[in-house]
């Protein structure tokens, strides 16, 4: 083979170029640096790619350290970015695109042919024929193919960055939900305690002969109803936590051992007007930063390059050039050989049309995507503003009112104007307001995560409803007699 190669080297300078180009290896981790930089810049978190499919020691230690303490939302994001295996799988798409890029620079392997002809009549040495042929046109279209693959690689880079940001916003939403669910359990536990105390008080009044069996049964029924609610909330809490666990990529004991904060942070008190101002440029920013649009621009670029490529190969689909060496009657003859398909039937019009259509398709998609980003940005802005208004109103007005009502009910109880049941009911209504507040806080932080994602260039999902409908306060007709 080596002899052959050497021989071929003498044959054509074109071959030299082809061989040099062909003997390229694929570098690993190419293009990841840009992803890393973009994520650090836009999400303030670090991503790693474990090429040997195992966490490196440093990352393992970092994840362990983050999990050792209460897991705040930013830390949860970092854990997911270091630990989520699906993300590692996504990074391999970069490898694939990189391999495609290398592939685009390679020539098709030369075709070596050998033949022998024996005379059937007499015993003569056979006629030998050797040929080597390679894709001559590939050499000409190589820069174009490389450009196509490079554009596709860039698009893939944007896709991968977008995938990282999807995880970021997903973790933020899941973390918020898990903390909110945990708080809901805590609050419903208190409601259940209140109804239990009501029921026990009624039981003792019944034992003393002061109330009817009907009143006793009604109070018990109320308590048993709240136990159902608590049970459902407890399960909901487990499910919400598991959604987060999946994103964190945790398995084994770590999956259940991590601790979440007890409370969602309150809504910052910055005025709604200043918040609205801060969001005024969201639409433009989202478009400028959009990774999806970025990827589509690169895809469009690649398609346009393919159109050029289609032009170049339209007439001569497979232009093979090579050399043939023959030994006929003991003499060696050498001559060039060209296989030229005659463009009688396929003049490349179909390929050109397809490439043309692909460009148009991508262009239309690009505009549609841009319009979508703008609309989502406007929706996200509105969603954040209304979530902030609602959460602030609950946090600053409704909940304090309920606290005051409980305090005044306690005073009326002390003055023996109302009974224990009414007092416990006031407490339950206060807790219900707290539950509404937690739900509103969760909606606010999720809306804020969506806005942050847009700013970082990711298009978040737009929820169909504004916020999870707060559980209506159960109408509890507690007769205080």
């Amino acid at each position, binding site marked *: 083979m080596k002899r052959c190669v050497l021989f071929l080297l003498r044959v054509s300078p074109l071959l030299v170029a082809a061989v040099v180009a062909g003997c390229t290896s694929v570098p690993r981790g190419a293009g990841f640096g840009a992803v890393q930089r973009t994520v650090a810049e836009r999400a303030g978190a670090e991503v790693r790619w474990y090429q040997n499919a195992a966490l490196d020691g440093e990352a393992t230690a970092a994840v362990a350290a983050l999990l050792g303490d209460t897991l705040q939302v930013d830390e949860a994001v970092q854990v997911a970015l270091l630990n989520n295996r699906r993300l590692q799988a996504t990074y391999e798409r970069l490898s694939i695109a990189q391999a495609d890029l290398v592939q685009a620079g390679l020539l098709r392997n030369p075709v070596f042919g050998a033949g022998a002809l024996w005379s059937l009549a007499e015993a003569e040495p056979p006629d030998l024929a050797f040929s080597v042929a390679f894709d001559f046109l590939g050499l000409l279209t190589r820069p174009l193919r490389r450009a196509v693959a490079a554009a596709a690689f860039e698009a893939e880079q944007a896709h991968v960055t977008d995938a990282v940001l999807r995880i970021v916003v997903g973790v933020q939403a899941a973390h918020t939900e898990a903390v909110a669910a945990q708080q809901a359990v805590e609050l419903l536990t*208190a409601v259940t*305690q*209140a109804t239990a*105390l009501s029921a*026990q*008080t009624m039981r*003792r*009044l019944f*034992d*003393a*002969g*002061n*109330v009817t069996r009907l009143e006793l049964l009604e109070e018990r029924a109320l308590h048993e109803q709240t136990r159902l609610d608590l049970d459902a909330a407890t399960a909901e809490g487990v499910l919400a936590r598991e959604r987060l666990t999946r994103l964190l990529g945790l398995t084994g004991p770590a999956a259940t051992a991590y601790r979440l904060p007890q409370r969602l942070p309150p809504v910052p008190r910055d005025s709604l007007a200043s918040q609205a101002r801060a969001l005024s440029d969201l639409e433009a920013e989202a478009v400028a930063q959009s990774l999806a649009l970025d990827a589509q621009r690169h895809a469009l670029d690649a398609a346009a390059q393919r159109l050029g490529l289609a032009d170049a190969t339209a007439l001569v689909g497979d232009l093979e050039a090579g050399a043939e060496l023959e030994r006929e009657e003991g003499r060696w003859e050498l001559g060039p050989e060209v296989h030229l398909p005659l463009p009688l039937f396929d003049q490349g019009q179909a390929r050109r049309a397809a490439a043309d259509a692909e460009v148009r398709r991508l262009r239309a998609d690009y505009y549609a995507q841009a319009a979508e980003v703008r609309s989502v940005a406007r929706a996200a802005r509105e969603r954040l503003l209304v979530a902030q208004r609602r959460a602030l109103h609950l946090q600053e007005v409704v909940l304090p009112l309920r606290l005051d009502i*409980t*305090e*005044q009910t*306690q*005073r*009326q*109880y*002390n*003055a*023996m*104007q*109302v*009974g*224990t*049941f009414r*007092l*416990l009911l006031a*407490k339950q209504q206060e807790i219900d307001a707290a539950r509404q507040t937690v739900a509103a806080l969760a909606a606010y932080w999720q809306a804020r995560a969506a806005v942050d994602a847009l700013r970082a260039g990711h298009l978040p999902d737009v929820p169909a409803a504004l916020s999870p409908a707060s559980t209506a306060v159960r109408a509890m007709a507690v007769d*205080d*007699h």
Partner: protein
Amino acid sequence: MNRRTWIKTGAAALGGGLMLPTRSAAALPATFDHEAARTAQEHLWRGEALPQSASTPNTASPAAEGGDRPARVVTPNGVSLTGRRADDGAWVYHLLAEEVEHEYAPGLSAFCWGYNGRVHGPTIEAVEGDRVRIYVTNRLGAPTTVHWHGLFLPSGMDGVGGLSQPPILPGETFAYEFTLRQHGTFMYHSHHDEMTQMALGMMGLFVVHPRRALRPVDRDYAIMLGEWYLRPGTRRPDPNAMGDFNVLTMNARCFPGTAPLVAQTGERVRIRFGNLSAMDHHPVHLHGFAWRVVETDGGVLPEAGRWPETTVLVPTGSTRTVEFVADAPGDWAMHCHMTHHVMNQMGHGIPNTVGADLGPLDPPTRHLLPDYMAMGEHGMGEMAEHIGMGHMDVPENSIPMVGGRGPFGTITMGGMFTILKVRDRLTDAPGWYENPPGTVAALADAEALARDSIAT
């Protein structure tokens, strides 16, 4: 000075100070000391004794508020209006109907409607045969009239709005004039939208003395019985109430805000009761004595018809005058015998907790409600004890259901409860009665129990 100017200048003296017509609380007469009331409320809720002055004002001598003749009747917590002699010989009185901030007891006050800056209005004192001319100025936002309850007078002076006269519109002053042809204890009250106006306090006593004293007494007291609905934490009586009255008053005061009655041992005492409660009659009971009902608002009872009683039923819309000799020294309770009428701001909408063992639920309940404490397991008396244990937050402008501080602990009474203090030697501030040794109920000692075969 002509009559017009006399009326104008005399109005101030008769009305007890110049006051501008007002509807707003801010401009109410500055007779109410909020700070003192708050302090008093704290004292009461903690079961502490009030300053002597707050609980035992001196009612030894009658107080007149303007007028040309001395008052002869003591209206505990109130005053008398005795009239001024006009040039034409009539006795002139002036009632100003207006909104008044009134205190029922230290710590409990409300915006009421009264006369001359008072609730109820002053006791009008006159003499049989007087020609009285009573000016009524309406400083309320609503039309009003005054009806002279039980008095014989021309139909057009009877004060029924729409029937006997047009109502007195806000800002107007009407004159009523008639000759007193009876003597006894009568009343006056609004007779226009009286459900509202009487519920807010527009009433007073009208005592007409006989030309010649029939039965001279040493002490002549007048008490108007009334009832209100004032929920703890509110500042205005609710006229819509029909059965849930929770502030029961003697002269618009409830215990421990009622001034005691005093007498020296052996004195003849007269008490005139009037009742203008919206819905209730009141059986008023005096401890330690039996009295005789001598008069109603219809006149004097013949001797033979007076029977001894310890409890006089005063129907609403009536007066009853009783007389007795205060021949036993001591601190004697006098109160309406309807048990709910000796409570202050009692809640009627609470569960019955008597006999229920609720104590064990206190600790878990305190997880949710740190200030919680089960109440009423042994009745209402506990409330005062709970309050005595430590400070409990209560609604603004409210007082405990029961509880004045007595010499032996909390007096578990409120509402229509007062004390008759009979002393051998009367002083300005009688204080608590000092019982002679051996005359106070006390813990029975083992020796006595054994002697009398008492198994406990």
